[in-house]
């Protein structure tokens, strides 16, 4: 079986399975062989479970032999970010503090994947507790960008993005708190979707900042990402922020875009690198040619999104990460004479420096005397940012923007400078603050590295973003180019 199978779309791989051109066992084996070939360089995976993957693949083949039912991903290999619980499999969150932890339950998205017949082949690398923009903050090892291994894949879902770009899987799950699906998708030249807050259940996702976190699908083709979104979206009683919405996002991908109003925020274009601006202009030109109406919109408070995010996210993380104390699971410091010493030693030994930094910032922002000045202030600014989007969406249907101000940077370049690392999330964080859907797809190249296009939609308007992304991919074919590995 040719390794080229690995670069077919998920939709095409499923067609081959249905036509008996390949078995699920063969499809999983060819991907596992690809992992063996390239992951020594890319390092996208933290763990691979070959035995369990082959068992699931054989089961999928049996089900298909009996008719298959209507399982959307039957027999398809997928990867899952290592902050999403898969029962019985190691789940580290990229952290030493979860050493040895094996979740006794599945995340809701994992239940949905398994019910759809997907074969989970492994767990992908990430910045520790999803805090970071390069996957260099993984406590195990950094992941490398398949397009240039000297560069970062982005983060925090860097493993999930790199695995897809390197042909190790055609679909993966990531999580996005301030851009953690979209930014690595952008750096690795793949598609990544942050759905509307509440569309995908967060049950079993180890939380970072609960009011911002959303699980999102990643793939090389927008159509594939839409298929995975159809599988994971939907109301879940186990997540009280889950909303009663779902859809067949992978159906009716083609639409007439004439008259569709697309706005470009002037704040995202001012001072933008001209090469990256060219990518955005090209996308605008393609949509205009198809009849969409392009105009300028304004998000006047968006410059405050980064500082608001860097109060809100650390504040919520400091509360969420209080559970990691060595009492019930994961690492516990040895020889502590009393419980307080045990808590402190466990957390000092278990957490990496970026996580500790954010816990400290968050604890400070929530502490007595500073709550109003920092946390409450940031949540009020969040309202202004939300209102900016509401106003913009009275003038347009979709917002078109760059994903990041730069393409993938070199490993080590920003590791000691948290503020400069944070600024790479400039165009993505406001979408989380407002709870809106955001889709990123490969928008061409700048000096040989991929540069992604971001589309931001109205609340629950995933469909329009998918249709536009699909149209762009049909027109350009950028997503069909693959890194030389």
């Amino acid at each position, binding site marked *: 079986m040719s390794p080229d199978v690995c670069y077919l779309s998920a939709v095409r791989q499923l067609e081959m399975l249905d036509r008996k051109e390949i078995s699920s066992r063969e499809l999983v084996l060819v991907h596992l062989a690809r992992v063996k070939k390239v992951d020594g360089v890319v390092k996208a995976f933290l763990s691979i479970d070959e035995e369990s993957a082959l068992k699931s693949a054989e089961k999928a083949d049996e089900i298909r032999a009996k008719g298959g039912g209507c399982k959307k991903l039957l027999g398809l290999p997928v990867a899952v970010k290592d902050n999403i619980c898969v029962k019985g499999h190691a789940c580290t969150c990229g952290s030493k503090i979860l050493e040895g932890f094996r979740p006794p339950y599945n995340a809701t998205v994992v239940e949905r994947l398994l019910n759809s017949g997907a074969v989970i082949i492994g767990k992908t690398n990430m910045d520790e507790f999803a805090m970071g923009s390069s996957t260099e903050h993984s406590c195990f090892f950094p992941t490398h960008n398949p397009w240039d291994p000297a560069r970062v894949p982005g983060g925090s879902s860097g493993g999930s993005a790199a695995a897809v770009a390197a042909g190790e899987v055609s679909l993966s799950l990531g999580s996005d708190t301030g851009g953690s699906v979209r930014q690595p998708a952008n750096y690795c030249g793949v598609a990544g979707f942050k759905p509307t807050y509440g569309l995908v259940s967060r049950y079993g996702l180890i939380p970072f900042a609960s009011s911002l976190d959303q699980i999102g699908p990643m793939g090389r083709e927008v159509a594939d990402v839409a298929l995975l979104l159809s599988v994971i979206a939907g109301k879940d009683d186990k997540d009280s922020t889950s909303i009663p919405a779902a859809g067949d996002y992978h159906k009716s991908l083609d639409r007439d875009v004439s008259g569709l109003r697309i706005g470009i925020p002037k704040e995202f274009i001012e001072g933008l690198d001209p090469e990256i601006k060219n990518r955005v202009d090209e996308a605008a030109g393609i949509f205009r040619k198809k009849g969409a109406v392009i105009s300028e919109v304004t998000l006047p408070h968006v410059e*405050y999104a980064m500082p608001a995010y860097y109060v809100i996210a650390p504040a919520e993380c400091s509360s969420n990460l209080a559970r990691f104390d060595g009492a019930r699971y994961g690492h516990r410091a040895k020889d502590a004479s009393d419980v307080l010493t045990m808590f402190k030693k466990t957390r000092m030994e278990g957490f990496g420096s970026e996580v500790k930094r954010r816990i400290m910032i968050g604890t400070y922002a929530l502490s007595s005397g500073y709550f109003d000045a920092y946390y409450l202030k940031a949540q009020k600014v969040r309202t202004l940012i939300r209102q900016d989007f509401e106003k913009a969406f009275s003038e347009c249907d979709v917002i078109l923007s760059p994903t990041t101000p730069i393409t993938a940077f070199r490993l080590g370049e920003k590791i000691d400078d948290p*503020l400069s690392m944070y600024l790479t999330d400039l165009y993505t964080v406001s979408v989380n603050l407002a709870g809106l859907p955001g889709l990123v797809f490969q928008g061409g190249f700048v000096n040989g590295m991929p540069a992604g296009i971001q589309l931001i939609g109205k609340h629950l308007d995933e469909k329009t973003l998918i249709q536009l992304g699909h149209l762009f991919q049909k027109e350009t074919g950028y997503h069909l180019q693959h890194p030389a590995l």
Partner: protein
Amino acid sequence: MTKKITEEQVAGVAHLARLELEPEELAVYTEKLGGILEYVDKLQELDTEGIEATFQVVPMSNVFREDESRPGLSVDEVLQNAPERSGDYFKMPPILESEDAG
């Protein structure tokens, strides 16, 4: 220019966060946190008088369900990851000897 945060404050915050910084770490954290706090101070430029805070973006309030028992994890499943176990309990170091455990 006055420092945004002092080493004493950082040590106090570390205690609240159940972290314990070594003296040389304390200086590093004080500098990095000071830089981040200076950056987020940009928020103070905005007048937010009369603006409601957005604590969450989902247009719903309390989510209720019937108070009925449902199957959950078994005791063994709950304890399978325990660093130390004693019967059906998580085993912990002594609490009462600690000065500040409350």
